[in-house]
Structure formats: structure tokens, C-alpha cells
């Protein structure tokens, strides 16, 4: 067993001990759980909700659900993964209760084709030379703002799959849609985001 395995084993043992203390109702264990995870989980809720107030509400709701559910936590997932899924779900619930913003017609952001199947307006290739674009805060803000322009049903799939790292099956379960629908929406979301970013990354226009 290598050092990485040993440290992984140690983390698992620490986590099992924490779960036992939580299940025994130990006050200090709850505080430890919250202090260890709040920052990471609040960042997830912020990414999904883009509102500090909503993100805080979702975080509170998520911890409440975690406190209620800890007796049933069986340890078949990591505690951190279990908490992550709870906060993603609480954020989705919050999104559903919000008034919907006017949405971009997504079809207009998909590639267009000629009758022979060629793209009608391929446009210039993206520049990939120069400094790493995501090093720049300005460009990160630009990417973020364009993700937020996507209609919610597409944005949610993109966030869950590409950003939060859920599998296709988990995303389908979380959104209560079919696996094939997840795949179609993810592909369309990426294509639309690509179209929105195209003017900023194509050819000399940077």
C-alpha cells in the first residue's frame, strides 16, 4: 500500500468516526461537519444560483436535510459526495421556485447547415495560442455570464455534468428526466455556449 492509499484509508477512517459521532447526536460532530464543508458547499450553491441570499438558503436547507438524513447514511458513498448531492438538489429546488428569466431561443445558437450537410457558416477557427485565457479574471467572467444566458433546462444539465461532475445517470435522476434527454440537452447546451463564446475566441477578434 502506497502513501496515497494510506492517506485515503486514514481519511475514510476519520470519516467513519465522524459519521458514528453524528449518528450518536454529538453536538461537536455537527459543528465539525458544518465547519469542514460549508465553504465548499456554499460555493456549489452560488455557482448554481448566482444569488448570495438564495445560495445561503439552499445551504441551510441542505444541512437541515443532512442532519435529518444522517441516520440513514450507510457509507456507500463518501460523506463529502453525499453532502454535495444534497446541496445540488437543494439548489435545484430553489431554482424551481424562482421567477424565470426571459430565455434565449436556444435553436438560434445551434450550428446551421446547408442541404448537403455542410455547416453554412463555419467561421474562423478559435485561437488557442497566447496566454491561457482562463488565467484572466475578465475571461472567466465572460464565460460565466454566457453560461448564465442559457435557458435553465440547458444550463442545469451543463452545470451538473460538466461542472459538478455528476454522471449522466445521476443527472437524469436529479432532474427527473431521461438519460437520453440529459445527453441531448448537454450537447445542445455546449453547442449554444460555443456559439456565444465564438465572437470572443475566433480568429483575430480577441
Amino acid at each position, binding site marked *: 500500500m502506497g502513501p496515497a492509499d494510506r492517506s485515503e484509508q486514514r481519511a475514510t477512517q476519520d470519516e467513519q468516526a465522524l459519521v458514528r459521532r453524528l449518528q450518536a*447526536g454529538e453536538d461537536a460532530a*455537527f*459543528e465539525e461537519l*458544518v*465547519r469542514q464543508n*460549508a*465553504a*465548499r458547499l*456554499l*460555493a456549489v450553491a*452560488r*455557482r448554481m444560483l448566482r444569488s448570495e441570499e438564495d445560495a*445561503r438558503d439552499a*445551504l*441551510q436547507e441542505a*444541512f*437541515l436535510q443532512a*442532519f*435529518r438524513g444522517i441516520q440513514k447514511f450507510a457509507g456507500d458513498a463518501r460523506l463529502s459526495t453525499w453532502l454535495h448531492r444534497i446541496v445540488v438538489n437543494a439548489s435545484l429546488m430553489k431554482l424551481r421556485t424562482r421567477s424565470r428569466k426571459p430565455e434565449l431561443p436556444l435553436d438560434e445558437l445551434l*450550428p446551421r*447547415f446547408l442541404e*448537403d*450537410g*455542410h*455547416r453554412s457558416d*463555419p467561421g474562423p*477557427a*478559435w485561437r*488557442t495560442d497566447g496566454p491561457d*485565457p*482562463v488565467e484572466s479574471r475578465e*475571461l*472567466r*467572467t465572460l*464565460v*460565466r455570464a454566457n*453560461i448564465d444566458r442559457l435557458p435553465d433546462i440547458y444550463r442545469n444539465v*451543463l*452545470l451538473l455534468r*460538466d*461542472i459538478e461532475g455528476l454522471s449522466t445517470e445521476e443527472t437524469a435522476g436529479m432532474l427527473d428526466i431521461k438519460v437520453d434527454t440529459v*445527453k441531448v440537452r*448537454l*450537447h445542445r447546451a*455546449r*453547442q449554444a*455556449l*460555443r456559439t456565444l*463564446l*465564438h465572437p470572443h*475566441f*475566433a480568429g483575430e477578434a480577441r
Partner: protein
Amino acid sequence: MSARSLTCRELIDFLAAYLDAELPPAEHAAFEAHLAICPDCVDYLASYRETIRLGKQALAAETLRPEDVPGELIDAILAARPRR
């Protein structure tokens, strides 16, 4: 087995499956055969990949340190814990 030829439209439809290595062997071969002769699709694939990477990195950069979480929020969470 003769490789079927794909149009650009079909290639773009298959992109996500290609990147997830979910294409059956015949479609995978047809996909790569098309890429070998179509610079527009090579560019599209590159920009699609770059879009995924940019999205991941833009959002992954939004992290918080424990001290960024307001103390009153931690207190409110702990106060809401149901007691047995």
C-alpha cells in the same frame, strides 16, 4: 466492412458521444475518416472541447475559503438542527 461517410451535420450530432467514447466502432471510424478530410469539423471539435474546458475552469475558479462563510450563517445552520 466499408466505412460509411458522414456529413458535417452528422459528425456534429455525434460529437458528445465521440468525446465520451460511446460511438460504436463503425461510427467511430467514420467520424475519424471525416475529420481527416474536413478542416471545418476539426475546428468545430477543437472549439467544442475548448468550450467545455473554459466552462469548467471559469466555474472551478469560484471557490471559497472557510473564513469566507459568514459566522452567522454557520450559527443559523447549527441552531436549526433538530434535536432528538
